[in-house]
């Protein structure tokens, strides 16, 4: 194919409508803001793992769609989530990333959440329990009972992850939304308590969907030199991307021959419960979460979009809570050798999406991004991404390959075509 002039370069590719994307959906500020409103404020988000708040009064803070969130464990051991926003004058209540409320803050008391600004305090259930000079200032016009925290739906599920949604009345329950995709791993993840042993985050100048795309296809093993030279075999290529309702995709298992990896050993001895030795499953969840179990170590990554061209990715590695120190060390080695910041794959993945982010910065001309590989739904097929953008288009009511067109228009258009045929 010769090089192309501008008209040729910007022409539609000879592929079906769902086989390519307009790069504007990766770079447009308005679309990014709509994603926060239409997707991230409605969806369930696995904000952390329960082992990260293992004791009563432990807490963690995070944000969903720019809204600050605090998750804490009560004296009754229940994990609850609240907006981390003071009902008085909107101060960010807790500024630490994590910690414990057992010890009181300078202007607050033990076991209470304290807003440092004017010392209002709240308990682990979100009740307001203290308003400084309450009667003097509000007489009988406003009382503590009326200024509790904004509580959010929160469930601990699927291996102990803490799921939160900003939507009080989600369209589907967490179980119905994610249950089927998790079936392949549920027995292994729920057999016994898990524990986070690794956490790091990366802030990358790219769109969050480009990161999810990378998690959704193995075609980019051509970038992972070591995977390519040691891992490719028939069983590897035979794995399938299986699409599940609500935009999720599961990559089927196969037995990994770690002996072929230079410097690696079999992981059979430490495989998760109920998981056949050295098997490998991966769940990609809409709109940007990845659960990846390589025998002995579970990786989970979660995106928080920070802008059309900026994403924070949080990476966690998990093992079994009951691990002996030796077992734990081995799991950490297994995890880090592939997925640590200096592992075989992760930095290459980040280079890939950062490169895409560079060519799709806001203000660049829109381009066509091809998602058209069809290989019988095996791992070099791009069906996982097509499935994802189908879901994305529905939530956003935007056509991924033509953001000026609504999803509903597309549906009516193709229905009309079908009727005419």
């Amino acid at each position, binding site marked *: 194919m010769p090089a192309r002039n501008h008209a040729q370069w910007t022409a539609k590719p000879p592929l079906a409508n769902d086989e390519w994307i307009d790069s504007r959906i990766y770079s447009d500020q308005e679309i990014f803001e709509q994603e926060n409103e239409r997707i991230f404020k409605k969806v369930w988000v696995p904000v952390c793992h329960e082992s990260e708040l293992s004791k009563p009064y432990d807490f963690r803070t995070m944000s969903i769609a720019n809204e600050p969130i605090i998750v804490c464990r009560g004296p009754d051991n229940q994990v609850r989530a609240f907006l981390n926003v003071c009902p008085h004058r909107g101060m960010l209540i807790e500024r630490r990333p994590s910690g414990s409320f057992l010890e009181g803050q300078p202007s607050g*008391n033990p076991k209470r959440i304290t807003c440092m600004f004017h010392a209002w305090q709240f308990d682990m259930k979100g009740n307001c329990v203290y308003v400084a000079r309450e009667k003097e200032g509000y007489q009988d016009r406003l009382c503590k009972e009326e200024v509790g925290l904004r*509580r959010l739906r929160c*469930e601990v599920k699927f291996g102990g992850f803490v799921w939160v949604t900003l939507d009080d009345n989600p369209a589907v329950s967490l179980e119905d939304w994610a249950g089927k995709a998790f079936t392949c791993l549920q027995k292994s993840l729920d057999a016994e308590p898990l524990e986070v042993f690794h956490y790091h985050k990366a802030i990358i100048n790219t769109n969050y969907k480009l990161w999810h795309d990378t998690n959704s296809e193995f075609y980019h093993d051509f970038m992972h030199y070591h995977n390519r030279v040691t891992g490719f075999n028939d069983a590897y290529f035979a794995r399938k991307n299986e699409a599940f309702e609500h935009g999720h995709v599961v990559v089927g298992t196969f037995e990994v021959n770690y002996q072929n990896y230079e410097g690696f050993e079999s992981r059979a001895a430490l495989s998760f419960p109920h998981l056949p030795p050295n098997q490998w499953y991966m769940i990609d969840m809409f709109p940007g979460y990845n659960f990846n179990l390589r025998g002995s170590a579970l990786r989970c990554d979660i995106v928080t979009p920070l802008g059309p061209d900026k994403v924070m990715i949080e990476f966690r590695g998990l093992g079994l809570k009951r691990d002996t120190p030796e077992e734990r060390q081995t799991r950490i080695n297994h995890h880090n050798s592939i997925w640590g910041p200096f592992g075989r794959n992760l930095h290459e993945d980040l280079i890939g999406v950062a490169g895409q982010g560079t060519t799709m910065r806001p203000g660049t001309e829109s381009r066509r991004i091809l998602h058209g590989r069809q290989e019988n739904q095996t791992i070099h097929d791009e069906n996982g991404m097509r499935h994802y953008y189908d879901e994305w288009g529905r939530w956003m009511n935007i056509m991924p390959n033509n953001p000026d067109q609504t999803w509903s228009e597309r549906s009516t258009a193709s229905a009309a075509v079908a009727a005419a045929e």
Partner: protein
Amino acid sequence: MSWTRICKTADVAPNSVKKIWIAGGIPVLVVNYGSGFRVVPPVCPHMEEPLEESGIVASCVLTCTKHLWAWNLMTLEKQGETEKPLKCYEVKEENGELMAFVDGELLYDFDKDDDMDDDAFFKS
């Protein structure tokens, strides 16, 4: 349980407080108000502030400096805006030893029992 040895009366100076772990792993606060002693739970009944840090004793009054709840130590009368009574173990002095009658740990009730299941809560 019954009369339990707490400490020597000389261990706690007049107009001061001291936290002590007694038999059975129970934490108590000994308050010496000059003309006598009180043995009380070690947290403020208002909001669980550790009284060994926030409590001061003067003119026979124990004050929690966090939000100024206070009790007369002789009469146990609440002072000013104080809303809850101070719980006390019965005490006696015997040969320079302070004794308290301990029948289980005295606790304050801080937790509001108002849990609704999620659906009831979010749909109400």
